[in-house]
C-alpha cells in the first residue's frame, strides 16, 4: 500500500474553533476516507488544518514527504469548499486552467488539459461560459476539474453534496467518481450523508468533539460501533437501556448498561397469535422497515417475508449475536 496521506499525532487548537486531535491515521493513495460527525465536531477545522490554512501541530506526510511546516500551496493538498469558490473574473476554462497558469504550464498544454478535464466531468461544452450562470452541480464539477488541474496527491472534500438538490447530487457523485478513478488521490470526504459515505468511501471515520473515535469500513461502522456515542450519531435504531432490553434480551452480561441492535438483526414475521403489533411503516429506499410495539418497547424491525400493515400481529425474531453491548462509560463490551 502506498500511503498518500499520513497524520501523526496531528492536533489543532485554534481559538474559536473545535480542538482537533491528536489524530494519527494513514490513507492510501487511491483511497477515500469518509469523515462523519455531527455539526460542530470539527470536520471542517480538521480539513483546513490538514491543508495548512489554520495552524496545527504534529505530522502531515503527503506521499511520504513531511509537509507539516509547508505553506498551503506547497503541500500537494487541494481543499474543496462545500460551496465551490469559482473565481468570478474567470470563465469555466479559465478557472480550470488557474492552477496550471500558476505553475507556468505552456498555454497549449494547459488548453488541452483543460479540455480533457472538462470532458472528464462532462462540462466540455461549457468551457467558455461565465461561472455566474452555472448550476450548483456544474459549479461543483468545475471545482473538481480545477482541483485535478493542480495535480494534488491529496484531495479534501468538505461536504460537496450538502448544498445540492437531490436531483443534482447524482451528477456530482458521478463526476467525483470519475475524478477519483482518474487520479490515485488520497481523499478525505466530509459528509453528513451516511449513504454517500457508503457509496464512495473505502473506509469511514467518526469524528466526535474533535476526536477520531472510530475508523472502519462503512458496513463495519454500523455493525460494531466503537461506543454508544458513535451508535447514537449513526442513528442505529434500537438503542435501549438494560432495563428496556431485558424483556427481549434476557441474558445480558452484568456489565452491560446499554444495548444497540441494528434493524437488520430484528425480523418481524406475520403471526396472528403473536404478542407484538406493527405500529407503523417507515419509508425506506431499500428493505421495508417498520416499528413494532413489543410491550412498552418500540422496536425497529425488517420484514423480509412480505409486506405487513399497521395493526398486524407479528412475532419478533432477534439475532442477539449482532447486538452491541456497552458498559456504564459508554464503551463497547467485547463479544463473549
Amino acid at each position, binding site marked *: 500500500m502506498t500511503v498518500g496521506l499520513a497524520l501523526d499525532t496531528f492536533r489543532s487548537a485554534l481559538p474559536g474553533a473545535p480542538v482537533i486531535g491528536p489524530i494519527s491515521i494513514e490513507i492510501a493513495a487511491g483511497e477515500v476516507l469518509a469523515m462523519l460527525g455531527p455539526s460542530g465536531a470539527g470536520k471542517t477545522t480538521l480539513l*483546513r488544518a490538514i*491543508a*495548512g*490554512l489554520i495552524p496545527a501541530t504534529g505530522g502531515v506526510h503527503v506521499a511520504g514527504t513531511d509537509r507539516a511546516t509547508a*505553506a*498551503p*500551496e506547497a*503541500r500537494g*493538498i*487541494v*481543499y474543496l*469548499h462545500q460551496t*465551490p*469558490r469559482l*473565481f*468570478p*473574473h474567470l470563465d469555466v476554462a479559465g478557472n480550470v486552467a*488557474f*492552477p496550471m*497558469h*500558476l*505553475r507556468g504550464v505552456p498555454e497549449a498544454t494547459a488548453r488541452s488539459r483543460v479540455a480533457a478535464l472538462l470532458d472528464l466531468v462532462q462540462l466540455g461544452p461549457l468551457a467558455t461560459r461565465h461561472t455566474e450562470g452555472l448550476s450548483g452541480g456544474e459549479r461543483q464539477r468545475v471545482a473538481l476539474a*480545477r*482541483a485535478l*488541474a*493542480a495535480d494534488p496527491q491529496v484531495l479534501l472534500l468538505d461536504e460537496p453534496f450538502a448544498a445540492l438538490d437531490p436531483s443534482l447530487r447524482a451528477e456530482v457523485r458521478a463526476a467525483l467518481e470519475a475524478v477519483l478513478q482518474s487520479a490515485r488521490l488520497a481523499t478525505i470526504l466530509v459528509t453528513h450523508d451516511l449513504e454517500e459515505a457508503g457509496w464512495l468511501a473505502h473506509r469511514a471515520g467518526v469524528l466526535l468533539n474533535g476526536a477520531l473515535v472510530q475508523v472502519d469500513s462503512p458496513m463495519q461502522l454500523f455493525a460494531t460501533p466503537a461506543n454508544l456515542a458513535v451508535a447514537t450519531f449513526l442513528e442505529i435504531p434500537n438503542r435501549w437501556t438494560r432495563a428496556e432490553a431485558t424483556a427481549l434480551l434476557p441474558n445480558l452480561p452484568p456489565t452491560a448498561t446499554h444495548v444497540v441492535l441494528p434493524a437488520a438483526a430484528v425480523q418481524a414475521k406475520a403471526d396472528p397469535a403473536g404478542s407484538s403489533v406493527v405500529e407503523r411503516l417507515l419509508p425506506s429506499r431499500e428493505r421495508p422497515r417498520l416499528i413494532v410495539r413489543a410491550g412498552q418497547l418500540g422496536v425497529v424491525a425488517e420484514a423480509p417475508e412480505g409486506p405487513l400493515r399497521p395493526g398486524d400481529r407479528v412475532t419478533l425474531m432477534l439475532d442477539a449475536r449482532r447486538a452491541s453491548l456497552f458498559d456504564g462509560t459508554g464503551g463497547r463490551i467485547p463479544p463473549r
Partner: protein
Amino acid sequence: MSERPRVLLLAGLTLTALLPLAALLLAAFGMRWFFPSLLPEAWTAESWRDLGGGRLLTALVESIGLGLAVGVGATALAVPIGRALARAGGGLERLGAAAAFLPVAVPPIALAAGLQLALLRLGLGGTRTAVFLGHLVPATGYLSLYFLGVFRLLDPDYEATARTLGATPRQVLQRVLAPLLARPLREALALGFLISWAQVPLTLVLGGGRVRTLAVEVVAYVQAGQDRHAATAGLLLVIPAVLALAIARRSADRTTVVMT
C-alpha cells in the same frame, strides 16, 4: 409624499447643485459684473490664458501630481490595512477602525498643526514631501475604512482556495485579489486623489506657502479680490469631483460582481 412637494424638492436640490456652478461659469468668463445685474456686462477668456503657461497651469500640474501620488500611496497602504482589520475582527478591528477614523474626523487645520511639528523635526517643513505626507494621513485613514468594508464583504475563502490550488501569497494578490478588487481599487484611487485635490489647510501649513496647489491658488485669488481667476481655478477644481462622482455612480450600479 404627493407629486408636487416631490417635484419642488427635486427642483430645489438641482438648483443648489447647479447654481454655484453657473455662478462660477459666469464669474470665470464675465467682465464688469456688478450687483444687482443678473449677467456680466462683457465676456472674456483672459483668466483661461493662464492655463497656457501661467500660475494657474503650475498649480494645476502640482495638484494633479500630488493627487495621483496620494491616490496611489494611500491605496497601497489602505489595502493591507483594511484587509488586516477585516480579518482580525472583534476588538482589534474596532480599535483599528477608530484609529483610521481619527485623521478623517479631526479638523484638517488641527491635523496640520500636529503634523507640522513632526515634519519640521524631520527637516521636511515647507517641502512637497511634507505636503504629500500630510495629505497621505487623512487619505490613508479614509481609504482604510473603505477597504475594511470591502474586505468584510469579500469572502476570504477565495484566497484559501487559491492557496491550496498552488498560489503563493503574491500570486493570490496578482491573480485573485487584484481582479476581484479592480473596481474598489479604481474607486480608492479616485477618492485618494480627491482628498488631496481639495486639501487647503494641510497644504498651506505643511507647504509653508511654497507648495501652490490649485485649491491654495483659489484661496489666494479670493483673498486678492481676483474673482475671475478664483472662479476659473474653482471650475478646474470641480472637474475631477464630477468625474469621481460618475465613477462612483457606475460602480454603485454594479457592486454585486465583486462581492459574492
